[in-house]
């Protein structure tokens, strides 16, 4: 346990050794996936208000958090693999795919704190700060396990991200739909995610679950 905490603390401080560039050390071989999964869960908790807005029931709420974490993990794996492909094919980095996945997983360490995003008022700036922190971690992580320059590492990440996005919109569409369907199934309601629709839903005049006593009446002139 102490070793795991050391790795996380190192990653938070961008220490290259933390990203385990050498061979896997015993129980730490799967640490990358573990951190990414927990980061996913933490993020799901941080963003849980979307589940509340969609009026998800308590048990389904808990299941949804787990499903969201798993979906996050699978998304992470696709993205890490794309990044590895780009680093190898475009920038000629020679590193086993598992090592890069592990490094990027560990780089998610700041996102373990993403549950703090649920804090009122301070949550949003905290999330922004964490994203920045994580992004730097990604670059440092890639550099630590490959021999790429800063710009090449950055390039691999961005192109890898773009590739993942392109995949999601094209060949990966059915998989994405499956993921969405899974989440809706877990939540028990079709989840509304995008900001504008959420806002409309909130402002639709329905005053929560409490007894609605007054509907606004239309005072504007009609013709």
């Amino acid at each position: 346990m102490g070793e795991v905490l050391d790795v996380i603390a190192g990653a938070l401080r961008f220490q290259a050794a933390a990203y385990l560039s050498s061979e896997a050390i015993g129980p730490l071989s799967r640490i990358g996936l573990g951190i990414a999964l927990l980061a996913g869960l933490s993020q799901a908790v941080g963003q849980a208000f979307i589940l509340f807005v969609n009026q998800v029931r308590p048990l389904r709420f808990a299941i949804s958090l787990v499903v969201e974490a798993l979906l996050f993990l699978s998304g992470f794996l696709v993205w890490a693999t794309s990044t590895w492909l780009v680093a190898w094919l475009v920038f000629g980095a020679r590193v086993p795919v598992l090592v890069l996945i592990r490094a990027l997983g560990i780089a998610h360490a700041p996102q373990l704190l993403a549950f703090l995003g649920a804090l009122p008022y301070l949550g949003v700036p905290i999330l922004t700060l964490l994203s920045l922190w994580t992004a730097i971690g990604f670059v440092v992580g890639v550099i630590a396990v490959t021999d790429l320059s800063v710009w090449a590492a950055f390039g691999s990440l961005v192109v890898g991200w773009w590739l993942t996005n392109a995949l999601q919109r094209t060949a990966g569409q059915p998989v994405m739909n499956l993921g969405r369907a899974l989440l809706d199934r877990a939540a028990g309601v079709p989840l509304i995610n995008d900001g504008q629709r959420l806002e409309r839903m909130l402002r639709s005049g329905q005053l929560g679950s409490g007894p609605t006593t007054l509907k606004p009446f239309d005072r504007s002139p009609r013709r």
Partner: protein
Amino acid sequence: MPRRRRLLLLLLLLGLVALALLPEAGLLLQLAYTALHQSFGLAIDLISVGLLLLLVSAFFAPLEALGWWAGWFGDELRPPSSVGALASPVGTEQPVRRWVVYLDGIGQASMQALPEGEDFLRQLDERLPADIAIVRGIMPYSVVNQPLTEGRWLGQFWRWVDRLRIRHPQALLGAVINLRNILVVAVSADQRYGPIFNQGMAQVITDSLLANGYGPGSGTPVTLLGFSGGGQISLGALPHLRRVLQAPVEVISLGGVFAGSNQILAAEHLFHLVGERDRVERLGPLAFPGRWRLQPFSYWNRARRRGKVSLISLGPVGHELPGGILDAKALLSDGRSHLRQTIDLVSAILTELKPAELRGPREPNNYLRYQANSWHRLDPNRDGGPLPSPALRPLDAWIGRLILPLASERWGGVWFEVIHTPAGWSQLQGQRLRLDWHDPLLASLAMDVHFSDEALQSVADGGVHPLRLNHWRQVTPLESLAGARPQDDQLVRLPAPVRVLPEAPGRAAAGTSEGPRLQIHDEPLQTTGTAVALVRFEAPAAPESAACPWTGVTFAASTGRFEGPRLRLRLPVPVLNSEGIAPATSRGLATAPTNSSGWYVSGVPDGTGGFVVQAMLPRSLQRFAPERVICGQRRAWDYVKRQAWHQPQAGSASAVLVTGRPLTEPEALAEWQPGDRLLVLHVFGGIGGQQREAALASGLCTGHFAYGVATLETEPLSGELGLALTYRQVYAHNPDGIIAGAQDRWRYLGDRQWGWLGTRPIADILVRFPPLTASYDVQGHERSLLRDFERQLAAMTARYRLGDGTGATFVGPANNCSQDSNQALFAAIQGLQRELRQLDQRALRDWQQQDPAQAQRLRQLLRLERELRRALLPFAGLRPDWQRPGEVLGTSLEDRPLDNLLRGLGSWRALLPRMASDTVIKVLLRHGASALVLRANQLGGDHPEIEPVAPLTLGW
């Protein structure tokens, strides 16, 4: 020094981050912690535990609101009694004038406010009149109105803390309640949780108001009185309350701590009372970026710029006890306690008229200035006198003055003081009759009027607004016309048919005779003068300053020459406007080129055998006698677009007939026949030259646009084919007292004090296009698109007069004269289409076969509509208000700057008045319409101080 403090805070934060990132920082921190722990041991541990607990409670703070929204708690958390209660019972003898809802500070744990809060409420209630009700007992930090001390699993704990705190106000543990409630304030200010929490609070407040007798839909104003954190809760709930209650809501904040991202603009007003020693209130401007000056477009900063916020200083007063806003013991230098001062201020705000309402214009506006011209002021005794010569004919059958009824005698109509009657009704002259405007369309246009702060600000800035209607309920379009100005001084013609309804027999028998009632079906026409003549001016024999120096030789229709009886005329010197520009002048009038063909003059008898010329229009603009005829689409368009406005010369006028079809000149002229109805497009330009108007300071002249309707008819004084023209002015509130609505050419253009003919270049384009201007016989009903359009414009102008209930209409890119006039055009066309779609298809086919010419016209109209829509509404998605009319008009640009601009661009060709006119004319010409283009540039006497400026348009 909040700015310096912010900077320090930021540096500290950056330093900490940098420290954490330094190599070996962990070791350093550990060392520091060990050192501290050795010295302060237990305290450090306690603080660490406290911080951890704080973090945990912050994490769970939004849970109550979120769970409420998601329905996790069912209705268990809200027993039926969990609504606020009245501070004291309300008497039934008079209705409640205003509801006040008290939201206590962050110290509140139970349904009771803190002792000092209870004291404050009791004394305030004693001070306020009986028709102001106070609702109290709301727990502002719970969406389910659940106090901390009851029905919660930590209830026992909170009760203990509450008791402890009341016994020992200085006990540190008492701060736990404050901390818990501060976290809820943060929830209310959070951009994600806020909308949910604030809706919940709005619901609690609404429930409490209703439970205590608030009439749903009554529109009775509500004041949210928030102390400390209650300020944020009030402002958060405000927009939701406003939407649900459809009533004005204002906020009084007592040392309120609130974010700048609340929709303060939705408030009627925010009164923010702050003491100089208030350290808690200062958290707001420090912690919430929306309150920083760095964010000029935050709701807070915009509300301040728009005068929505009054900051009221309480002097050397702190926040909480001792020495706080509600402290009954601490005394001010004038001997009053802090509490007394707060009660004085709050009750003054609640009972007295707002300072802004008492303000008139800071400087006399044009409307007030023009009152000095007694010959142009309405004087029913003088104006109704006998006409001095048979060469004058009455302007219309029914002419009179509109009088706004008293609030206590309202019935939906207005009084009409009769100045001129048709034959047979002369016994009614001088009487005050009830006038009703009967049109089902207008019933839905009645609206409550509550002046916005912006409207009151505009009054102070010199705008003429319907102040007399402020706080009236369901004001009708006729009332808004009569009450548009501070005085009953609008002369109107009643459009035919005017029905004279005998008075109810009961009234006559009861001796409360009011005479008959008048009923009309169209809007009264604002006009100038009661009689009209066609004259040629002769140079004055006496100096112009003499009382009645002018002579007008009238026109003899029998000979076609100016050789009729001579009239003694007064041409009063108009009062200069606030920019020093004379609205009209009579210098060199007799020798001006327009005088050769004569002037129509309108006015009133002067009581001494002379005639006061209040308005004048050149004969060349009042008849159908084009100097040129231009045929063919391209040439016609070129004239309208370029030549008509090319280098306008002051004192010149022209009348040119253009047609989009390749006709010969006689063919083009022969089409225009008496009885033809015409669509009018009016545009005016700017006043330039030595006395250039201030509106042209930017160098751009946008001008003004209006639609109107004209009829070709034989004019009795000249025997010629004349033009009877009415404008439908969609006109925002202004310092001249021009009222949006149906305006006669006499008033709007020809009036020598109030009109534009003498100072501005104008174009009146009269379009003849039978598919648009003729009527249709649909299954026995006569349907006229032009008539529908007039009604739509009547509705639009009625909304403009009241600013949709806010008392003011402002000009912006999305809402202005040309945008909203064209919006009315679309509404009319859509109405006809809807009606045709509802017809039985077989009946429609039969109808088309029976009257192929009519069917052909209809097809042309539909083609025209499609093309007009493409031209005027290229981005339909940006203008939902044009597709679904009924949105609020003419909000100021600041309200939603980007949205307003985008909307304006959705119909960008209607953005500029002349461009709108050009666009419509171009489409019409392409469809084969013909048009009489009348142009005039600053007509009347010599006026070398000013020059005409053509309005801006864009070429394409």
